[in-house]
Each structure stands twice: as C-alpha cells, then as structure tokens.
C-alpha cells in the first residue's frame, strides 16, 4: 500500500534521492513490483491487441478468398470473434493466467503444451551459451585488461570488435562451414534429447551454443577488459601489490570482484539479445525450441501461436530482468536509490 502511494507521487523519487535517509528495501521492492505489474498488464493487453491490428478480419486469414458469409460467421463464432473486445480479452487473459493459451487453429494442437515441450531445449541452449560466453570472455578479457595496450590486447580487442559486427546468422554459417563441413568435427544438425544421451545432447547443442556465445562473449570481454584495466590503476591494487600479493591473486580477488556487478547487469540486459539469437540459431540448426516454433508460426501465419509464444517470452523476459535487478540489489549494498528511474 505504501509503495502504491509512493509510485503515484511524482516528487517522491527526486526527494528520496536528495534526502540522506535510505528508503527501506521493502518499500522499494513494493514499488518495483507495482511497476512490474503495470508493465505486465500493458504487455498482455498489447499482445492481445496485436491480432486486432491485422489488416482485414482475423477470420479472413483462415479462409479462402471467396468464402460465403455463413462460413465467415461460423469461423468467427469458433474463434469467439463475435463477442465484444473487452470480454474476449478477459477470457483470453483469464485462460492465459491458468496456463491455457488455446489451440492453434492451423495445427489443432494446444499452444501451451507445445511451448512447454519446447521450452527446456531453449532454456538449455541459453544457459549453455551463457556458460560458453563466460568461458571465452573471462580469460581473454582479464588478459587483455592486464596487458592493456600490448599487442596481445590489440589482437583480442580487435577480434572482439570484429566478432561484434557479425550477426548470429553469419557466425552460425561460418561455424558450420569451418567446424562441420571443412574440419568435420561436429554435426551441423540433428538434435539429441538430453535424456536419450547426455553427452550426445551436449555435442548436438555445442555449435548452436557457440554461435550464440560468439556474439555474447565480445560484449562481456570488452567490459571486463576496461574494468580490469581501470581497477588495476586503483590505489588499493597498489596496496595489494605492496603487500606482496601475486598478480593472479590481485586479478581474481581484487580486480574481478567489482566487475562482477556490472557483468551481472550486462548479462541481464543481454538476455533479450540472447533470446533473439536463439530464435535464429534454433532455426539454423533445426532445434526443436520455442524460437523455431515462433518462426514456424509466423511463416504459417498461425497468429494464435505467435501471440501465445510472444506472451510467454515477454513475461519470462520481464521476470528474468526482475531477478537480475534483485540479485544486483542484494549483491551491492551501496545501491540505495531506485534504479528503475
């Protein structure tokens, strides 16, 4: 309740920021939650209205060109289009809250079940990709920052700049060409479910995850590099050196810790990019994930499926961002003002 008052009061944040007293964590959390609920409400309304924007009638997209009026009326009744807009939204949102996104009029399969079946593949891919990007970015970023200005740094930073200019689909094509066609190390397609064979599963997801990581890693690498380089110039590093700590300990204990906060935020921000990337990668490598399901939906003009997938992705994305935000707040006690504004 307090939070509601706070968020409705325009001057609150400004006053809170200037005042010396730190607003209680709980109040901030409630305010954040109100903001989140408002965003989720708009997201669901927008996703629902998406289909209303379709040129012509929604029913038309399921019918041939010279359908009779009776046929149009029948399909409108089937889809519930004869009801008023608000009532349809309430029905749709209520069902969505219960986890029912309806059936695809094109394939006849329930959309929620189809998404649930494909979600683990996408989640595993995203996790795998994040781990691979860290595995690439951490050593290279630290090395480049530690040897700032050296030839090694220039090669790593130049590579990162180049890698950033390559979209996921270009990296994917290059990696297929290099690792599966020319070197013949890895298969380019053929997804193996985890339960069938865990090593085979990791093998089959390696190229897709690496493709995602090649675009993610440079972002982390550049951050780590500049962070490490600037931290190494700080006084407390000089102190640590004077205490006789080795380079490795200084890098890992003192220089890396401050970077981890920014890294977490960046990973949170990058999840959107990663989700977009997985849409491409799943299509390129024929993985049975949510992203490919979305592309198939768009190509088949199966708008109910598109709507359902977009809703699930957006809600998941908002929640992940909330988690990242909370993790960041918990990790860094200095953060006392509202980061949302």
């Amino acid at each position, binding site marked *: 309740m307090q939070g509601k008052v706070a*968020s*409705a009061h*325009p*001057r609150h944040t400004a006053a809170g920021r200037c005042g010396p007293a730190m607003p209680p964590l709980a109040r901030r959390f409630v305010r954040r939650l109100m*903001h989140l609920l*408002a*965003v*989720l409400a*708009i*997201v669901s309304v*927008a996703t629902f209205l*998406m*289909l209303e*924007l*379709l*040129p012509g009638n929604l029913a038309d997209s399921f019918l041939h060109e010279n359908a009779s009026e009776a046929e149009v009326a029948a399909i409108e009744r089937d889809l519930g289009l004869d009801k008023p807009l608000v009532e349809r939204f309430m029905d749709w949102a209520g069902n969505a809250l219960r986890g029912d996104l309806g059936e695809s009029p094109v394939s006849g399969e329930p959309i929620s079940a189809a998404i649930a079946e494909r979600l683990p593949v996408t989640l595993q891919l995203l996790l795998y990709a994040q781990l691979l990007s860290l595995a690439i970015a951490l050593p290279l970023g630290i090395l480049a920052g530690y040897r700032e200005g050296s030839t090694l740094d220039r090669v790593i930073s130049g590579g990162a*700049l*180049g890698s*950033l*200019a*390559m*979209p*996921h*689909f*270009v990296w994917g*094509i*290059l990696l*297929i*060409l290099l690792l599966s*066609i020319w070197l013949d190390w890895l298969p380019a397609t053929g997804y193996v479910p985890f339960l069938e064979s865990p090593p085979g599963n990791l093998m089959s997801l390696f190229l897709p995850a690496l493709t995602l990581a090649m675009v993610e890693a440079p972002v982390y690498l550049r951050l780590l590099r500049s962070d490490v380089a600037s931290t190494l110039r700080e006084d407390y590093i000089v102190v640590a050196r004077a205490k006789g700590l080795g380079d490795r300990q200084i890098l890992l204990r003192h220089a890396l810790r401050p970077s981890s906060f920014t890294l977490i935020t960046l990973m949170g921000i990058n*999840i*959107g*990019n990663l*989700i*977009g*990337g997985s*849409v*491409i990668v799943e*299509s*390129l490598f024929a993985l049975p994930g949510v992203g490919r399901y*979305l*592309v198939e939906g*768009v*190509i088949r*003009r199966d*708008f109910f499926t*598109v709507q359902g997938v*977009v809703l699930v*992705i*957006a809600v998941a*994305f*908002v929640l992940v961002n909330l988690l990242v935000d909370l993790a960041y707040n918990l990790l860094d006690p200095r953060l006392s003002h509202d980061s*949302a*504004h």
Partner: protein
Amino acid sequence: MTALTEQVGHLSTLSRPDWRLVLPVGWLALVFLAALTVDWLPVPTPTDMDFMAVETLPSAEHWLGTDQDGRDIFSRVAHGARVSLVVGFLAPLVGLFFGTLLGLLSAWYGGIARTSILVALDAILAFPGLVLAMALTAILGASVGSVTLALGVLAIPSFARISRARALPLIQREFVLAAKTAGAGDAWILLREVLPNMVMTLVTYTLTIVSVMIVIEGALSFLGVGVPPPAPSWGGMISEGRSALERAPHISLIPAAAMFFTVLSLNVLGDRLRRRAEAREGGLS
C-alpha cells in the same frame, strides 16, 4: 583530457591517412554507390537466371559469381544493399522522432504523464527486439515499409531513455529558468531551449543504431519473415546459400561479408563519433 589527447593525436596524424576513418567511410561509400548505380551497370538484373552458369565463381561475366539459380551475386548484393540501407537508415528516424518526443515529455512533466510514459517504454522493452520485430512484421505484412516501421518502434525506448537522460540535467539549467521566467510555453522551452542542446547526442546515437537495425533486418530476412523474395536482401541471400554451403560457400559468404564490413564500418565510425560528441558536450551537463 581525452579530448585533448585526441586532438593532439589528430594533428600529428594529419600527414598520413587515418585508416580507421578512411576504410569505413570508403566501404560505406562503395556500398551506397553500388546500391544507387547498379541499374546502370552492365550486370544482369537480380532475378535473371543464367542456367549456363550455376554456382560459378567470380568471373568477368559475373563479377561475384552466381547462385544456385544462376543469378548474378553482385547484382543481388547491390540490390540487397538497398533494402539494408533504406531500412537501416529510415527505422532509426522513426525511433528518433517518437523516442525524443516521449523522452522530452517524460523529463518535463511529472505525475501520471511521466509514470505512464515510463511504463509504456518498459512495456516495449519487455519484448526481446527480434521477437517484437517478428511479431510486428507478421501482422503488418512483410514489406520494406512495415519492416521499417517495426524496427522504428523497436528503437523508440532507447531514444526516449537517451533524450530523457540528456534532458533532465538541461532542464535544471539557468537558460531554461530564464525562458520560463520570460513566460515561454512548455513546447517552446522543450523544442527551442532543451532540444538544440542534445542534438549532437541524438544524431550520434542515430548513426550508432543504424548497424543494429541492419542486423535485425538481416535476421528477419534470414528467417524468411522479412522483406519477401524475389526482392534480394542480404539476410535472404545468406539463408538461400545454405543448401550449397558445401559445394559453393561463396553464395552465402559474399553477402555475409558485405553485411560484416558494413556493420563493422558503422560500428567503428559510431564509436569515434560518440567519443567526439561526449568530449564536446561533456561540459554542458
């Protein structure tokens, strides 16, 4: 400090060419030129199929070779550049216009107006970029116009955030207070006093985001949900070349290289421009 070193560095390198400036500008000029003049060049149209020359390597007849249908890759890359450039440069303008408007309004007004603008912007950001672009293009129908519009919508929140962040300190400044005291209206103050002071930041950001837009347009075409065939686009060409990747990798790699060099050039130039703009406007806020 950085501005100074850059200036000094700039002076000392005047005699020899600055490759980090010359190469990107040169490449972009080449792409623009190819896109503009391809219709008058002695090359086949992008849809002409030469069945005597299928999947050929570059030759005098086909400058960059041909694809699986015997279509001229140079002609297709140049025509594809039109799609990339039109979408890449127009979409940020849509974002620039609406984003700046919303950013200024949310910086100036408090209360309900500010809260609802911020929530609406966060709602756009709640959709991962490519997913929103796909959904919007699916609904608006795949065409250059709708892809541009979809990507423009995508760019609104970042422009709004940047202009809001720039406007907030400017609004506290004495010239705004002076204008207010002189009886200027809200619109006058925002457009005549605040906006001119953030033009440099906004222009720089517009150029930076062009490469992002080109990549997303490429992704849409690659997935087959963007600008529809037979109009050639780089993403579509890369995708079509996949089936011949083993026999004739150049069919995919040539448009991929075109996109890579374009995006890299824009990124390098954007970096440089941003640094210069920050140095110039640093003292103002």
